[in-house]
């Protein structure tokens, strides 16, 4: 109220959203490993247990199948569990409950029970973490019918999308790009305004090239777009944010102008979400396309230990190289 809104980081925006919903809705409970007194290993839940009590903000035993599974039981009885996996690399024991139960409870009971759960996990590489701490496997979850998969790329979007995820009547996997947890600050008013879970965000307008990126890769993608801009090329940068269901139409709309597209993600290429986006683009915009959709991705190998992680992750140079291929492509006949 008249007070100036403090600039906060992405991880602080997560905390702010969690606090907002804990305050607003008595059905919200938050749990995971080390999220209580410790406030989470990234401090995403800092202060929440003190403020809302250890009945609503709970440390669990060390068991991810359990974390995923109890959320299902809680949600069927009307709670709104927000469950944290400490790192995405440790989410897999929970997949069975996410895929076989949370994502289909509503469908298999024909609407009788539902699972308004948010599963949160820090994700992605680039922080020099130990093995298994730098995973990007959003594609596995985006393939699961009944689930939503959401990735914020700024403090404001983290806040608005997490509010939306918690209020959503169905399960949402909310992946937090830890490389940008503290990369930038932004004033984020705690106004309780959710962002839509079905619309992409156009982060930069342009008519020469469409660049699609989410999570931490948005940073390098915008940097690449800036670089191109100095060369007189205006790239439109789109962050789908909600990867499932995907707002392909915003991307197609952009292609109406640009006719060329680059998709960027940290995850391995083969079977990554870049494939789905490329497939849909050629389905919906075949006639528009002047060049094959380029994928700039992690390599199809295991995420390396940190010495080599930067060789693995798509950086500005790799994005630029692919952008140039897309921009300079000419059909055989036209060459």
């Amino acid at each position, binding site marked *: 109220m008249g007070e100036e809104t403090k600039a906060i980081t992405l991880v602080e925006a997560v905390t702010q959203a969690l606090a907002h919903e804990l305050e607003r809705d008595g059905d919200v409970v938050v749990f995971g490993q080390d999220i209580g007194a410790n406030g989470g290993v990234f401090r995403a839940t800092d202060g929440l247990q003190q403020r809302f009590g250890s009945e609503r903000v709970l440390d669990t035993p060390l068991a991810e199948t*359990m974390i995923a599974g*109890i959320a299902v039981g809680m949600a*069927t009885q009307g709670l709104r569990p927000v469950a944290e996996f400490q790192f995405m690399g440790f989410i897999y024991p929970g997949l069975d409950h996410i895929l076989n139960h949370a994502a289909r409870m509503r469908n298999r*009971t024909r609407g009788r029970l539902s699972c308004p759960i948010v599963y949160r996990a820090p994700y992605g590489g680039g922080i020099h973490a130990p093995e298994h701490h730098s995973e990007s496997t959003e594609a596995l979850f985006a393939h699961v019918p009944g689930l939503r998969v959401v990735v914020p790329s700024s403090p404001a979007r983290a806040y608005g999308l997490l509010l939306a995820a918690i209020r959503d009547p169905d399960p949402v996997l909310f992946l937090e790009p830890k490389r940008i947890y503290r990369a930038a600050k932004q004033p984020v008013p705690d106004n309780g305004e959710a962002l839509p879970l079905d619309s992409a965000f156009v982060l930069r307008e342009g008519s020469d090239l469409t660049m699609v990126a989410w999570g931490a890769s948005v940073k390098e993608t915008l940097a690449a777009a800036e670089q191109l801009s100095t060369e007189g090329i205006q790239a439109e940068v789109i962050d789908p944010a909600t990867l499932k269901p995907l707002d392909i139409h915003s991307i197609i709309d952009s292609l109406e102008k640009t006719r060329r597209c680059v998709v960027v993600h940290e995850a391995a290429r083969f079977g990554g979400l870049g494939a789905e986006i490329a497939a849909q683009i050629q389905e919906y915009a075949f006639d528009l396309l002047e060049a094959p959709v380029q994928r700039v991705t992690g390599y199809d190998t295991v995420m390396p230990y940190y010495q080599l992680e930067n060789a693995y992750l798509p950086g500005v140079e790799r994005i630029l190289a692919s952008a140039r291929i897309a921009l300079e492509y000419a059909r055989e006949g036209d060459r």
Partner: protein
Amino acid sequence: MHKPRLQLQASFDIAYLQYLDKQGQTTQTLPEFATPDWLSYCLRQMQLARLVDDRAVKLQRTGRLGTYPSSLGQEAIGVATANAMIGEDIYCPYYRETGAFLERGVLIEEILANWGGDERGQNFQHQPGDLPVCIPIATQALHAAGVAFALKYRHSQDGRPLQVAVASSGEGATSKGDFYEAMNLAGAWQLPVVFVVNNNQWAISVPRHAQTGTQTIAQKGIAAGIPALQVDGNDVIAVAWAVRDAIARARQGDGPALIEAMTYRLCDHTTADDASRYRSARELEDAWQWEPIKRLDSYLRAQGLWSDAKQQDLDRELAQIMEAALDRWESRDPEPATAIFDHLYAQLPAAFYEQYDQLRDEQAQTGNRGE
């Protein structure tokens, strides 16, 4: 050789409970709840379960139902468990639970619909909060822990009476991490949840001894710090006492419990199974000697509480119930194929409209739900 002196750090016992022995004779004074009426009611409910199972297996044989898991010989467990619950408690069943379903008010036509490949069978009309039939083994144990958390949370937030979650499973399920993680959390958080294990000696073809090196299944509760008891699972009174006692303690805020109910699977694993491939005829024959219905029947007749006449009346009554349910089941309209999208999300996101329309148009053309 050196033998060190060890200090005793902790001690644990596993006990066993039985009221009616294999011949249907009492081994001790019956509990108060075991009135003649209650006992006759249990006999009736076990027979109804057996009848539904029998008809379902026959429907499968004639191609009118999919794979079906009968509970033949294990009826006492489901009936006694569900009978010990109140309506507001939440049941988290596995698949072999016809007796418990009936006792919880699930409709026979819902049971048939479910095993007949129709999701509407899981939309229980009379039990809005119970979980659906759970097929991925032991996962329901974790759901039950989550349910129990919610029940405890509601109780502490708005002072409503504490309700209890009850999870059922087979003994094979206790080998799975889910089962252990659920027990462990229940113990750590003192959740109002009761785990009832139908130890029917087989997990499809895998015998109990190959499942785990323990003397009992009950002792697995020790690893979670929760009270555990082994009972004669073919003695409906013993199961009922154990579950009632565990529920009463949970309802009072005293936390979880594990009950191992010893029984025998008199049927094949499911209609898709042929148990003669791995199980001796002799073992099966023996097991028929101590099955739960015969046992309770013997006891009630010895007490003058049951007779051929009563049985005939009951047979007629149950047959009518069954036929009426079959009629209702058979007269249901098939679901339109588009139903596969209708409950995917609370609201179908726009991204799926195109597929929805495609499916609808396809169905309009073929009119045969794809078949």
